[in-house]
């Protein structure tokens, strides 16, 4: 083929274009190459990290807080999902929204939407507008709405309105067992009760989830992903039965109200195991609204309030005396007033001088006789028994704020205290101590530590039952049997005759202690500790009412105990025994009925 000049020119032009194109391509390649070197060579790991950070999202997985259950597994406290509605006020304005019916965008006026939201939230429209409209990027509109309300509120579609998930504690029984459960603060910090003391078990361990997301916010499948699952908190099952607790609260509230007392409380215990079935106060905090209740009632007063027990303190004095050789039928001469080592001890009401049995003195609760019986035992021995029974010691049932009471050593007792401690003055204890003392006597002399927490239940439903306490023998079986008969005498013909329960043998001891205040004794604490059925003791009830008004002769709380025991015996299907009372005679000679 022959070459023409025209052909050569065309070839040159196309050749130049080709070379030019190749040069540009090479230049671009060089730029890319350099960039590659910069990225990969200069700071490869740094860039990789930045890129990863762009994509990686870490989310803390909040563990679910454990529930608190009663002995039957009913919920006393549980966590529920709630939402805080929050507005970015800068975005709250008239807007366009998609209409599903017409299938197109349309203008929506803000006022109209706010009116709709006001109906959903139940907030006055004007008030709502104040909260919604403004310049603040973050404004809480309403706290803790249910998922249902949240869904309705967001459905309206007001721009800038968001929902933030929060967890809220729900206490379905209100003030039943409120002081035992405790409560959380507004930010979820545990503040009182089991919520505080068992927080370690209830709160669980937070987990974390990291994953990569694409620019549109959807997780990139098969990309780096790591998850440390949250460990949900354990449920705490109590020995409390919510029905028994409620009944006890009703009973003690009624009694306290009728005497216009400062406070009253009741502790119900399983006589064989030391399990607390109820710990009731005359007034109880509602954990959903703690500030509405006096702080005194934020914790069970059975645990936190100590007082001089009065005659219920004779239970330990007599048990110790019986343990050390005194017989229930020994005879004593009991005057109305008697001098011991220069101290005049007198009874609360004048009575003739009687020849009485040991059991008779207990039945009629005469102080003069009590001192005679109790001083047969060395002070140190009596003190040690009281100490072993738990007086002056903290009772750890897993709740904060236990009051240990005051019991000083015999060496520090003054001349009168030596005698007053025999009949329940000169030292203090709580109602829980009283219940524990009677539990020891009723359980064949073996003390079981009071127990409030039955089991911890893991998230996978496996139960970690708190082992039952082994128990400590304090009195002999024989002393225990004798004491039960002494206690029965009090109910049959002594100071607690309204404490009877038809069909069952009941024992108990009353007490009216002088309450110390500013400037000396200026009030009373009236109390009763009862146990039933005596053939096979099951339940112990201890009640005290602090600073009742009126005349002490009219105060009685044993009827409340009888009401409680009746309820317990029926509820737990203990059949009536119809057995004859087996108490001892009050007087060695007839007649048994003599004036007080």
């Amino acid at each position: 083929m022959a070459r023409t000049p025209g052909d050569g020119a065309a070839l040159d032009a196309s050749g130049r274009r080709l070379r030019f194109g190749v040069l540009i391509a090479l230049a671009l390649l060089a730029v890319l190459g350099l960039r590659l070197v910069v990225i990969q060579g200069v700071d490869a790991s740094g860039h990789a990290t930045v890129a990863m950070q762009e994509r990686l999202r870490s989310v803390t997985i909040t563990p679910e807080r454990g529930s608190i259950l009663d002995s039957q597994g009913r919920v006393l406290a549980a966590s529920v999902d709630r939402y805080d509605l929050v507005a970015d006020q800068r975005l709250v304005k008239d807007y366009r929204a998609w209409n599903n019916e017409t299938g197109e965008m349309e203008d929506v006026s803000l006022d109209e939407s706010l009116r709709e939201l006001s109906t959903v939230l139940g907030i006055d429209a004007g008030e709502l507008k104040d909260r919604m409209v403004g310049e603040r990027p973050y404004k809480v509109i309403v706290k803790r709405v249910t998922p249902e309300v949240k869904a309705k509120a967001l459905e309206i579609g007001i721009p800038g309105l968001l929902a933030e998930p929060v967890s809220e504690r729900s206490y379905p029984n209100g003030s039943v067992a409120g002081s035992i459960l405790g409560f959380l603060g507004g930010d979820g910090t545990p503040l009182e009760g089991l919520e505080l003391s068992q927080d370690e078990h209830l709160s669980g361990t937070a987990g974390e989830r990291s994953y990569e997301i694409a620019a549109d916010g959807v997780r990139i499948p098969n990309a780096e992903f790591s998850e440390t699952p949250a460990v949900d908190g354990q449920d705490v099952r109590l020995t409390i039965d919510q029905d028994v607790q409620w009944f006890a609260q009703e009973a003690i509230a009624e009694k306290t109200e009728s005497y216009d007392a400062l406070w009253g409380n009741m502790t119900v215990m399983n006589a064989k195991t030391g399990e607390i079935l109820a710990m009731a106060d005359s007034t109880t905090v509602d954990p959903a609204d703690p500030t509405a209740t006096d702080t005194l009632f934020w914790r069970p007063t059975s645990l936190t309030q100590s007082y001089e027990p009065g005659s219920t303190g004779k239970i330990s004095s007599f048990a110790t005396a019986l343990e050390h050789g005194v017989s229930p039928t020994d005879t004593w001469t009991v005057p109305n007033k008697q001098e011991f080592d220069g101290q005049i001890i007198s009874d609360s009401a004048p009575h003739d001088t009687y020849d009485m049995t040991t059991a008779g003195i207990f039945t009629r609760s005469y102080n003069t006789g009590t001192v005679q019986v109790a001083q047969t035992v060395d002070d140190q021995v009596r003190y040690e028994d009281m100490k072993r029974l738990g007086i002056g010691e903290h009772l750890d049932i897993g709740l904060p704020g236990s009051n240990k009471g005051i019991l000083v050593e015999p060496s520090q007792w003054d001349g009168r205290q030596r005698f007053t401690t025999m009949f329940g003055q000169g030292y203090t204890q709580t109602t829980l101590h009283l219940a524990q003392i009677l539990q020891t006597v009723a359980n064949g002399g073996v003390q079981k530590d009071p127990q409030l927490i039955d089991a911890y239940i893991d998230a996978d439903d496996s139960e970690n039952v708190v082992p039952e306490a082994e128990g400590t023998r304090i009195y002999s079986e024989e002393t225990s049997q004798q004491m039960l008969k002494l206690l029965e005498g009090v109910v049959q013909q002594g100071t607690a005759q309204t404490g009877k329960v038809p069909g069952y043998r009941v024992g108990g001891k009353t007490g009216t202690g002088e309450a110390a205040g500013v400037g000396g004794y200026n009030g009373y604490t009236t109390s009763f500790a009862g146990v039933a059925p005596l053939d096979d003791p099951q339940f112990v009830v201890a009640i005290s009412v602090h600073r009742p008004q009126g005349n002490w002769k009219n105060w009685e709380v044993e009827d409340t105990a009888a009401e409680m025991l009746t309820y317990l015996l029926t509820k737990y299907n203990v059949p009536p025994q119809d057995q004859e009372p087996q108490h001892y005679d009050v007087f060695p000679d007839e007649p048994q009925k003599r004036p007080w």
Partner: protein
Amino acid sequence: MTVTQQRFAMQPAQTRESAAPQIGQAAPWQPSIRPAARPAGGAVGDVGTRRRTPLALVPTPIRKSGRGFAALCIAVLVAALMAVLITNITVSNRQYELVSLKNEQLDLSQSNEVLRQQVEHLEAPQNLSAEARRLGMVNPGDIASIDLATGAVTGTATAADAEDQPGGHVASPVSPEEKQAAAQAADPEAADTAQPEGAAAPAATPEGGTEGGPEETTGVPEQDLNGGTIPAPQFSARGN
């Protein structure tokens, strides 16, 4: 004449003429092309042209199979792309499905929670006793029991006291609905820890809303999806 016809025409001649005598000449180390070419040339006589013709024809089978190969490559490519596309679509659909299932799970667990709270509220001892009072029930009298083994009756049953009604001292728990209403009435920034005492239920409780709410359906509710078809993920406070 097409290439294919040529090849078929040539082959019989080659094989017939080159059959037996030439085999010995091909040493094992010699390229196989030479023995194959020589007998073809020797038989016809004109060595130069004869040799070139079969060489020219050699590429033809390659060219032919090249087309098939290209088609195969494209097919594989298309198939691979389709597979990737389908995988991607499936995976992202699963993602959305996962999101919607999680939302559904959350909805269900939350509506379960609401029901559970209602049950717990009704089961509260105060509410049970209030209901019992409303029905005119009273505390029982003394009980008696029959031992089925011996037939012995113990205890003496007495009539219940018509005035002895249970309860009344322990305040009833606030129902979840009342609590909600009180919480909503409170200014969230005024009191942070507790709601004001006795916060009365506002005039417009969500009563009407709960029953006559528009489009109240369960399962897949007709949500406002802003024109889209995929719901956004939701979260609960408990990391679900």
